[in-house]
C-alpha cells in the first residue's frame, strides 16, 4: 500500500520486521498489525501520562502553601482531570493495550489477535475519547473528581462535564473491545500444544483482565449516560428533589470502578510473574495457584464495590457483607505476593532493571494492598474515608504497583518491541530515583490521612504543611525519575545497540522469534511442547 522503503542503506540492510516492512503514516494509521497498534497505543498513553503527571505536579505545587497558590476552581479542575486522565486514559489501557496487545498473540503462537480490525478500531475510539477529554480541558475543564458523583456532576457543576463524560464513555468502549479481543484470542487462537496450563501467566492475567473489562465497563457506560441525560434534560433520575437517589449512581459507578482497579493491577501482576521467573531462572512457584488467583480476583472483584460507600448511608448489613468480601478478594493477592517471593528461593537471581522494578512492585504493592485492608475494615474506613489515607493507598497500588510493573515490563520487552537495547546503567539509576521519589511523595500522605486531611482540597490547615512539603518534594523527584526513561527510550529507538532475539535468556515463544518480530510473528505456526517456564530440571518440594 504505502511506498516501500526509500530508506537509508542501514535500514535496507536490516532484516525485515514489523517496523520496517512499510513506511509512511498511512501504514501506521491503517495498520491491523497488533504490534503496530500496540506501538500507537504506547505513544498515546505515554502522552496522556505526561498530561496527567503535569497536572499532578501543578497541584502538588499548589499544596506547598496551606492557603494554596491557585484558585480553588483551578485546583479542582487539575485534580479531576488528573484522575480522569490517569485512570481512563493511562492506567486502564496501559499494560493491556500496549504490552499485552503486542505479546499475547506471540506468546500463544498466533499471527495476530482474533479481530485485528476491531483492535485498530479500539485505538481510534481511545483517541476520540482522549480528544473529547482534552477538549473539555481546553474549554475550561471538569471539576467533578474522577468519580463524577451525582448530584454534583449532574446538576450543580458548571464545568464541562458532558464532554469529559463523553470522552470516558468512548474510551470505555475501546477498553471493552480490547478485552473482548483478548478473550476470544486466548480461546480460539492458541497454537497447537498451547494448553491452558502452559499459558504464560501474563496471558492468564490479561485474560482475567479481559473478563473484567467486558463485564464491568458497560455498566460504567450506562451510568455515565444517565448522568449525561440528567445534565442535558433534567430528567431527574439522580435528583433528590423528585425522589431520585444519588447513591444509586455510586452503586452503578463502583460496580465498574472497583473491578476497574483490578483492571489496573492484574496485568501488572502478570508482568511481574514473567519478570521474576526470568531473572530468577526459575519456573514460577505454584503456577496453578498464581494463574487461578488471577481468575479468583477477577470474579471476586465484582462483589466488593460497596466498600467505597460505607459512610454514604449504605445499609449496615450490606456494608458488612461488602467488608467481608473485600477481605476475601485480598487473599488471592496475598497468594501471588508469596509465590513471587518463593520463586526466588534457590533461584539464580540477577539484578537487571526489570527485576529492580519487580522488587519495587512487590514491596510497594504489599504496602498499598495492606493499607487497602485498613479501608476494608469498617471502623477504620469510617476514620479514613475521604482523606489522604485513601490517596496514599491507591497511589501505592496504582503507581507503586501498576506503573512500576508497566515500566518493568517495558524495559523487559523493549528489546523485543524495538530491536534495540536501552542503557542499563541509566535505567537502574532511574528505577532507584523513582522508588525513592515515590515513597517520599506518598508515604507522608498516610500520616496526613489519619490526621484527617481531606482529599480534594486546595487549602489546608497549617499544621499539615510539613508533610505536604515533603510530599511535593517527592513528587518532583518522581517526575524527574519518569523523565529519564523517556529520554533514554527515545534515544534507544534510534541509536540503541541492536538487540539479539533473546537478550535475557528467557523462555517463552516471544523470545524464540527475531527482535523485532516480523509482521506475522511466526513463519509457521509453532507447535508447543513445553510449559511456559522451562528453565531446566524440576525438583519437587515436599512439605
Amino acid at each position: 500500500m504505502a511506498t516501500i522503503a526509500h530508506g537509508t542503506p542501514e535500514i535496507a540492510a536490516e532484516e525485515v520486521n514489523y517496523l520496517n516492512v512499510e513506511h509512511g503514516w498511512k501504514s501506521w494509521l491503517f495498520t491491523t498489525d497488533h504490534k503496530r497498534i500496540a506501538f500507537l497505543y504506547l505513544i498515546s498513553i505515554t502522552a496522556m501520562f505526561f498530561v496527567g503527571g503535569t497536572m499532578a505536579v501543578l497541584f502538588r505545587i499548589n499544596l506547598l502553601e496551606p492557603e494554596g497558590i491557585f484558585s480553588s476552581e483551578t485546583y479542582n479542575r487539575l485534580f479531576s482531570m488528573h484522575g480522569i486522565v490517569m485512570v481512563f486514559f493511562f492506567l486502564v489501557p496501559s499494560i493491556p493495550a500496549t504490552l499485552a496487545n503486542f505479546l499475547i498473540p506471540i506468546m500463544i503462537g498466533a499471527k495476530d489477535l482474533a479481530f485485528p480490525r476491531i483492535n485498530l478500531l479500539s485505538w481510534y475510539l481511545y483517541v476520540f475519547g482522549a480528544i473529547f477529554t482534552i477538549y473539555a480541558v481546553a474549554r475550561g475543564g471538569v471539576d467533578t473528581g474522577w468519580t463524577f458523583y451525582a448530584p454534583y456532576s449532574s446538576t450543580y457543576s458548571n464545568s464541562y462535564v458532558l464532554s469529559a463524560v463523553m470522552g470516558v464513555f468512548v474510551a470505555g468502549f475501546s477498553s471493552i473491545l480490547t478485552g473482548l479481543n483478548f478473550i476470544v484470542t486466548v480461546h480460539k487462537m492458541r497454537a497447537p500444544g498451547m494448553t491452558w496450563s502452559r499459558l504464560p501467566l501474563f496471558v492468564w492475567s490479561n485474560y482475567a483482565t479481559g473478563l473484567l473489562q467486558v463485564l464491568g465497563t458497560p455498566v460504567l457506560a450506562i451510568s455515565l449516560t444517565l448522568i449525561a441525560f440528567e445534565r442535558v434534560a433534567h430528567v431527574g433520575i439522580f435528583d433528590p428533589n423528585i425522589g431520585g437517589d444519588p447513591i444509586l449512581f455510586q452503586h452503578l459507578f463502583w460496580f465498574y470502578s472497583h473491578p476497574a482497579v483490578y483492571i489496573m493491577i492484574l496485568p501488572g501482576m502478570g508482568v511481574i510473574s514473567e519478570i521474576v521467573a526470568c531473572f530468577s531462572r526459575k519456573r514460577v512457584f505454584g503456577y496453578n495457584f498464581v494463574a487461578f488467583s488471577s481468575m479468583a480476583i477477577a470474579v471476586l472483584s465484582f462483589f466488593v464495590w460497596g466498600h467505597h460507600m460505607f459512610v454514604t448511608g449504605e445499609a449496615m448489613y450490606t456494608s458488612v457483607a461488602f467488608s467481608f468480601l473485600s477481605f476475601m478478594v485480598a487473599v488471592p493477592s496475598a497468594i501471588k505476593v508469596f509465590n513471587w517471593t518463593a520463586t526466588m528461593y534457590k533461584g539464580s537471581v540477577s539484578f537487571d532493571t526489570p527485576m529492580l522494578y519487580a522488587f519495587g512492585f512487590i514491596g510497594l504493592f504489599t504496602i498499598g494492598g495492606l493499607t487497602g485492608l485498613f479501608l476494608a475494615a469498617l471502623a477504620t474506613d469510617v476514620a479514613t474515608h475521604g482523606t489522604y489515607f485513601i490517596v496514599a493507598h491507591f497511589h501505592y497500588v496504582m503507581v507503586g504497583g501498576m506503573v512500576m510493573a508497566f515500566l518493568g515490563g517495558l524495559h523487559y520487552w523493549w528489546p523485543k518491541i524495538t530491536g534495540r537495547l536501552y542503557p542499563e546503567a541509566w535505567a537502574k539509576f532511574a528505577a532507584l530515583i523513582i522508588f525513592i521519589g515515590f515513597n517520599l511523595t506518598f508515604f507522608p500522605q498516610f500520616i496526613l490521612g489519619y490526621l484527617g486531611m481531606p482529599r480534594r482540597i486546595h487549602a489546608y490547615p497549617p499544621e499539615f504543611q510539613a508533610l505536604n512539603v515533603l510530599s511535593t518534594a517527592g513528587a518532583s523527584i518522581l517526575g524527574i525519575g519518569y523523565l529519564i526513561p523517556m529520554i533514554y527510550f527515545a534515544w534507544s529507538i534510534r541509536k540503541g545497540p541492536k538487540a539479539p532475539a533473546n537478550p535475557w535468556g528467557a523462555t517463552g515463544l516471544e523470545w524464540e522469534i527475531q527482535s523485532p518480530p516480523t509482521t506475522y510473528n511466526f513463519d509457521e505456526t509453532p507447535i508447543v511442547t513445553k510449559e511456559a517456564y522451562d528453565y531446566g530440571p524440576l525438583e519437587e518440594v515436599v512439605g
Partner: protein
Amino acid sequence: MPASLTLLLADLQLFPPAASAQAGPIDDLYWFEIIVSAIMTVLIFAAVILFAWKYRRRANVRATQIEGSNVLETTWSIIPFLIMLIMFWWGAKLFFAAQNPPKDAMEVFVTGKQWMWKVQYPDGSHEINALHVPVGQPVKLTMASEDVIHSFSIPAFRVRHDVVPGHYDSLWFTATKPGRYRLYCTEYCGNAHASMSGWVEVLNDRDYANWAGGGSHGSLAEQGQQLFEQNGCSTCHLLDQQGRCPILRGVYNKPVQLDDGRTVIADDSYIRESILDPNAKVVSGFQPNIMPNFKGQLSEEQVIQLIAFVKSLSPPTPASQQGGQQRPVVIAPKAKAPAKAPAASAPQQ
C-alpha cells in the same frame, strides 16, 4: 530557609488526638492493622532481600527448579485469611456499635450547603462551621443537605458520615476531652469544598452551661411555631381539633397508619418527608393532594425548626424519656424506609 523548616517541623504532628469515646477503640484496631502490616511488610521485604542476595546469580550455579507446594500454598492462604477475619470482625463490631445513638443523646441539627455547615441547637441558637458540645454527653447529629452530597467529619472523634440530599443522615459521638478540634467536609462538593470546615469545641459542663445560657432567641421549637403560623400550617393543622388534617399533637415517634396499609414511626425523617413531599406517605383516613408541597419554600433549616415544634407537641411521657428524640428500643424501620410492611422486613436483633 532552615528557620522556616524548623517552624514547619515544630508543627509536625504524626497522630491525631483521640477525643471521643469511640476514638480509642478505633485506634486500637488501627494499631493492630499497622502492626500486622508492619510484620507482613518486614517479612516480605526480608524474604525478598534474603533470597535475592543469597541466590544471586553466580557462574556455574544453576537455579533449582521447584514445582510448588500445596501445603505452603494452603498455609499462606489460610493464615492471612484468618488474620483478615480478625480485622473484619473487629471493624464490623465497632461499626455496629457506632450505628444507633444511646437514648439519652443530646440532639443537634446540622445542615450542609455549598459551602458551609449550619448547626442548630434545640435551644434555638445556631452557628456556622462551629459545633459546641459538652464533654461526656452523647451527642447525636441529625444532618441534612440543601444541595449536593457533603460529608461531616471530625477526625479527632474518628467519626464521619455523608450527608446526602433528600433525607436525614445521622452520626453520634461522646466527646471525652475538652478542647478545640477541626471539623471538615470530606466529600467533594464543589468550588469551596476546602473551606467547608470549622471547629468543634468540647466544653466541660460549666463552660457549656455558660455558653448555652446566652441564647436570647426562642428555642428551636418556638422558632418552629412561628414558621408554623407563617406558612399557614396552623390553618389546617388545628392543634386540638381534627379538620381535614391529622392532629399533630402526640404524633411524634408514634406509629402512623398509612393509607396503603403500611405503618411507619413518625420520626424526624418521616415528618420531614411529610412537609416536603406530603404525598409520599399519606395518613390513612385523609386525602392526598390537600396538603401543599413545601419543597423549595422551606429550607432544610426551617424544616428542622418545624420538626422541633411538632416534637414539642408530644411532651415526653415516662415511657419515652427526656427530649423525646429517643428511638424505640425495638428495631423499627427508619422512616425513609420505602415500601415493605415493617412486620415482614424488620429482622429481630
